């Protein structure tokens, strides 16, 4: 399915196709690409029923997403449809309610075809931490698609669906978007409701969209964003006109080039592609300004204290009592708790629970958790200072292109280092986008743009103008129509 959301909407309005036909195509494409292992659950019955409803809606007053097939990351609760978070702990979990994001997309008559694979509880940067096995990168099936929204990214890159939902706690939308050659937007913390989105690190988790272009992302974010009384951290402010802002010329836009984002560890080919993209921005009328984020090197250590600390607290709820996995034949309540959790969680999830528990424990709280929170403020202050003189901050999304399956998953620290250019954005709660900016070693490279809080429209505008002047986002893996 190579058409954009706008083109699909037009074809649907003009009756050149129907929601049912598009949905059948997406379901067939999903089965045809089962080699990618990108879906945990394919919901044929639900999708065809939703498509039928969309076809009725299309006859009257359709939303721009009506009849457009897509996939949900399997972290969003779907009423009556299994939601696993890629964990054995939730292998049998069928939620009795919908996430707000699920309700909103269903309300717009978009057609969910199923639930995408991911790293367990969104903890990972390669999608190798899934109870259901790793996802493969459509550009090279011996490589990872990135994580944790790896299934979502692979489905979009392989042309199965034009967009997919994802979540980003430390880079989990942007890094897979970069590795799979697509566009991924992480919104401002609080812009999209977290209600019904299974919690990992509650002060960092954000939900949004992966698609093939900034224009498509704008269409979807317009539906997903907004205040939700069911999420107390949801921002109570108006949603900007993302689609209406796309056409603005970039004349006068000041882009800060963060020198720390081009430091040691950035692959030469990745750096070159991003520099070339920045030259393109100059041609579009933007000015490049050298900026510094002095505490950038502290983002990884701060993140890998704060995120596990919040995870250890959030994941305390999995106790074998109320839902999910429960150990067989418990000898005592304690035995039930400890074996349920030991058997239900995978290695990386357990590692983060232990690190987080340690960082929050008596005697270590000040040295780790509180210190990380102070550093978090330094990191947020760095961005605030830089945004006094620039409108956006740019750099490579990832230090390298997609790496090989198995290359880093035995070394947690090598995997954490993947997030070097993404986690600071989550600590500061800012919006950022990754867009295709060229290739290195025949694999996609992502350009990351970061904006001040609630400036998603500025990000989407800047990304869209680049995509009007370049064709990186239209490139497809060999064999993808």
């Amino acid at each position, binding site marked *: 399915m190579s058409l954009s959301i706008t083109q699909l909407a037009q074809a649907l309005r003009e009756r050149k196709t129907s929601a049912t036909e598009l949905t059948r195509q997406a379901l067939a494409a999903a089965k045809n690409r089962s080699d990618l292992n990108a879906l945990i659950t394919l919901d044929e019955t639900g999708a065809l029923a939703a498509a039928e409803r969309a076809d009725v809606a299309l006859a009257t007053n359709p939303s721009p997403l009506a009849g457009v097939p897509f996939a949900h990351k399997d972290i969003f609760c779907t009423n009556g449809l299994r939601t696993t978070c890629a964990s054995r702990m939730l292998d049998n979990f069928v939620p009795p309610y919908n996430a707000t994001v699920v309700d909103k997309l269903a309300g717009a008559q978009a057609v969910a075809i199923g639930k995408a694979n991911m790293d367990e509880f969104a903890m990972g940067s390669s999608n190798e931490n899934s109870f259901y096995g790793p996802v493969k990168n459509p550009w090279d099936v011996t490589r990872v698609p990135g994580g944790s929204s790896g299934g979502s990214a692979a489905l979009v890159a392989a042309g199965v669906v034009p967009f997919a939902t994802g979540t980003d706690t430390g880079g989990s939308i942007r890094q897979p978007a970069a590795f799979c050659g697509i566009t991924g937007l992480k919104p401002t913390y609080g812009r999209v409701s977290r209600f019904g989105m299974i919690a990992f690190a509650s002060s960092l988790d954000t939900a949004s969209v992966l698609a093939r272009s900034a224009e498509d992302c704008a269409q979807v974010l317009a539906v997903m964003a907004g205040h939700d009384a069911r999420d107390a951290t949801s921002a109570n402010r108006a949603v900007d006109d993302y689609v209406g802002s796309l056409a603005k010329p970039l004349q006068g836009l000041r882009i800060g080039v963060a020198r720390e984002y081009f430091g040691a560890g950035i692959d030469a080919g990745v750096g070159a592609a991003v520099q070339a993209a920045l030259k393109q921005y100059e041609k579009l009328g933007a000015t490049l300004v050298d900026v510094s984020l002095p505490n950038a090197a502290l983002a990884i250590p701060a993140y890998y204290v704060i995120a596990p600390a919040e995870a250890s607290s959030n994941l305390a709820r999995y106790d074998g009592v109320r839902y999910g996995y429960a150990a067989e034949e418990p000898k005592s*309540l304690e035995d039930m708790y400890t074996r349920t959790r030991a058997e239900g969680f995978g290695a990386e999830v357990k590692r983060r629970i232990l690190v987080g528990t340690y960082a929050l424990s008596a005697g270590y709280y000040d040295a780790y958790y509180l210190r990380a929170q102070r550093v978090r403020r330094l990191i947020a202050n760095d961005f605030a200072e830089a945004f006094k003189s620039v409108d956006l901050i740019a750099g490579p999304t990832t230090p390298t292109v997609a790496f090989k399956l198995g290359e880093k998953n035995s070394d947690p620290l090598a995997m954490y280092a993947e997030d070097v250019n993404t986690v600071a954005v989550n600590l500061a709660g800012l919006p950022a986008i990754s867009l295709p900016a060229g290739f290195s070693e025949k694999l996609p490279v992502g350009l990351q743009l970061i904006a001040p809080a609630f400036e998603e429209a500025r990000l989407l505008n800047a990304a869209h103008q680049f995509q009007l002047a370049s064709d990186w986002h239209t490139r497809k893996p060999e064999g993808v129509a």
Partner: protein
Amino acid sequence: MSIDAATVRHIARLARLAVGENELAPIAGELSRVLDLADQLGAAQIDGVAPLAHPHEQTLAWRPDAVTEPDRADAFLALAPDARGGLYLVPKVLE
């Protein structure tokens, strides 16, 4: 920060995670490496810097203290590994 097997046993107990005796040493090694990473925070100049717990430091919104959720006890209890008579069941805690 290097941690030992006894510390792993203590944290695992706090986290309610069963860890086998033979797993303690490898986990201690892994956690020590992650904590070495965290120890890089020691280089930060944080004197007088207040902790930031939440990105926008927003104040929580007030809402009327009213019941808004319908009673769905049956739907939730149906998810439980073991429930009877409207109650979640767990192994006996008192003899």
